[in-house]
């Protein structure tokens, strides 16, 4: 493992990679700050910029955008009560209250420190666990892959937000969109309506840009904006007592976040909600939660960062995206000609370890950048939206065009943007659609191969103990939260808390922004 780490440091510490890592972290923070723009949008919009780069450099920059945007989203959560990310939704509860109490700086500082600690802890676990995970997954054949895809699709439950049926409908829509183009196996053109452009399928990045960037802009234009709270420099200093109060929540949040992040699809949103819920239950200052408790910022912020890192285990080792942003990153891998999955660790050790080590460097940069500069970043919130959204429109369209140098890409962005707007207006969750779109072709490939092995008999899946185990896990993931909720409601009526409680463990995370 030491050799691998050294290889990673050697790869990540080149001037070029350090530079682009810094650019990614900085751009990510700025993007996370923009109202409504989150890491998924950031990665999708800036992906075209990286096409000319070396894959490792490109992925380091995109990963930097990912966790940079998460921190940027925290700043908006605290200062204007507008989470840039679904994973920061829960931070708004106490973070915004802290800001209103004049402790905006402390909230931002503990979020940065908590995120950093979580990143380092989870990174150590990631480095220890990802390779054995990948080695185990090396034995996978088509039946195991099929089971794995079912597991990936089962995670949609946790992305569904308010209504499971709505989430499943969106997942089916994603799967359906994924079938457009030439069929795997038979080579038949499906749903192309005679269009040559559609033969290669609905382009993934353009759909992401449309859904997340354009859809969000239209949504914001329709919804209107809210007044920000200004952060003053003297609010920034975090007190020793606040730091001491945050140690345990940060550690608990990191642990919980990592555990949940490892599960494919559970994403950082769920982790942040559960960490908040747990903290609210175990904290000696329960009464302060919701009124500006620093623990209410420290725990979910650590959790979402730990989960974001842990998300890379299923993404890199199994090829199943851990969340919407890692789904886009997965798309990026394929654009660079890389196939995420167990073989990646064997075939591309420099890339994998360089990327993992870059998380450490990127998080360090983020801490150094954000502790002193958070109020300066916060000034960006004062850029009038009247300038900002037209710029986002241009960036989205030029980015989409540059992927295949085709105006058709821009039309896809417009169509996906309109769809994204409608989905936001009517609370249709986007993450299941993204997951369906990403996993659809992989699922179909596994399905076709498995059925070929069994001569049309798909029950060959049950002959593999690994596949059966994965399927059982999928079942637990799909139905476990409901069963757990049912058990809790029954037992909660007799001895539970009165009044509104925290979000319960295993509960589907609400995704008001439709992003997970």
């Amino acid at each position: 493992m030491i050799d691998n780490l050294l290889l990673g440091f050697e790869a990540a510490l080149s001037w070029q990679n350090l530079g682009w890592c810094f650019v990614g972290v900085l751009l990510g923070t700025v993007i996370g700050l923009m109202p409504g723009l989150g890491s998924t949008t950031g990665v999708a919009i800036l992906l075209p910029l990286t096409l000319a780069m070396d894959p490792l450099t490109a992925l380091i920059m995109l990963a930097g955008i990912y966790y940079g945007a998460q921190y940027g989203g925290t700043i908006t959560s605290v200062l204007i009560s507008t989470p840039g990310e679904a994973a920061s939704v829960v931070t708004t509860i106490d973070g915004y209250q802290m800001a209103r109490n004049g402790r905006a700086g402390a909230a931002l500082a503990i979020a940065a420190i908590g995120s950093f600690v979580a990143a380092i802890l989870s990174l150590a676990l990631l480095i220890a666990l990802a390779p054995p995970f990948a080695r185990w997954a090396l034995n996978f054949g088509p039946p195991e892959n099929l089971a794995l895809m079912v597991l990936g699709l089962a995670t949609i439950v946790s992305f569904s937000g308010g209504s499971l049926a709505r989430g499943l409908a969106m997942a089916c829509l994603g799967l359906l969109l994924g079938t457009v183009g030439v069929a795997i196996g038979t080579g038949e053109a499906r749903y192309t309506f005679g269009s040559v452009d559609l033969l290669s399928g609905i382009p993934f990045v353009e759909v992401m840009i449309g859904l997340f960037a354009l859809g969000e802009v239209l949504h914001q234009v329709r919804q209107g904006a809210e007044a920000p709270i200004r952060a003053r420099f003297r609010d920034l200093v975090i007190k020793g007592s606040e730091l001491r109060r945050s140690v345990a929540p940060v550690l608990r949040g990191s642990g919980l976040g990592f555990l949940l992040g490892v599960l494919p699809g559970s994403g950082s949103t769920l982790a942040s909600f559960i960490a908040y819920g747990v903290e609210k239950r175990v904290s000696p200052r329960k009464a302060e939660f919701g009124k500006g408790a620093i623990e209410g910022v420290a725990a979910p912020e650590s959790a979402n960062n730990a989960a974001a890192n842990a998300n890379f285990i299923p993404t890199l080792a199994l090829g199943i995206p851990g969340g919407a942003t890692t789904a886009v990153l997965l798309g990026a891998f394929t654009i660079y000609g890389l196939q995420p999955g167990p073989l990646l660790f064997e075939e591309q050790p420099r890339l994998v370890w360089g990327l993992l080590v870059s998380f450490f460097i990127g998080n360090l940069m983020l801490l150094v950048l954000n502790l002193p500069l958070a109020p300066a970043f916060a000034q960006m919130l004062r850029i009038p939206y009247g300038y900002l959204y037209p710029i986002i429109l241009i960036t989205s369209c030029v980015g989409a065009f540059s992927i295949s140098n085709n105006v058709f890409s821009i039309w896809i962005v417009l169509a996906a943007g309109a769809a994204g707007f409608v989905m936001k207006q009517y609370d249709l969750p986007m993450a299941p659609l993204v997951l369906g779109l990403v996993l659809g072709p992989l699922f179909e490939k596994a399905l076709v191969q498995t059925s070929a092995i069994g001569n049309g008999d798909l029950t060959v899946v049950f002959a593999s103990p690994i596949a059966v185990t994965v399927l059982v896990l999928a079942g637990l993931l799909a139905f476990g939260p409901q069963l757990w909720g049912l058990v809790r409601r029954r037992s909660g009526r007799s001895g539970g808390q009165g009044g509104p409680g925290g979000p319960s463990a295993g509960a589907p995370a609400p995704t008001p922004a439709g992003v997970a």
Partner: protein
Amino acid sequence: MSTASPAPAPAPAQPAEGPSRGGTAIHAVLVVVGVVAAVVGAGYGITVPGSGGEVGAGALPVLAGAGLALFAAVEVAKDVIAVRRHRAVGTAASGAPTRPGLPLAAADLVPGTTTDVAAASEAPSEERDIFGRTAAQRKKLLLVVSGLLLLAVLAIPLVGFLISFGLLLLVLSWKVEGRPLLPSLVTTVVVVVVTRLVFVNFLGVPLPSGLLGVL
């Protein structure tokens, strides 16, 4: 902030004002899309002809289409039941303003976006944003922005990408958003120049220059 505490999950969101008509219409459209996709998909062949029943090109389309129709139909049914229940209960609970389409329970999880903000700002009869725009004005704004964006894309073959989108930026910031002319103009020029430098000069993307062929 009373609405800040998340409701005990995983209780499904209960729309307090009953489902919106638009939402039900969207669900109904999804049912139709699902059915049509499944029917068309079946034409691709659920199994490979002549094989022992191997999965064909139509299997996933049929599965996904049928699933879409089924789950969207569940949502339509839920909407219909909710409307009936809502009518039976009366409209007593419909005072609180909510974001359209967002069920109250979910909306309550986003502090500062819903009821408490409206209450904090002396509860105006119509929700206004920080620019003082009413909901109706924002609706009109949305149509204008969408229309102009469409126009900009349509104009690409004529005037080229950068001129078309540069004009879009200028018109949106100056005319539509009412920002001062000079900063709008400066922003436009900076964005156009940076876009050209990054995409055309640095990345070598051949942005369409249209019939004008200027930029």
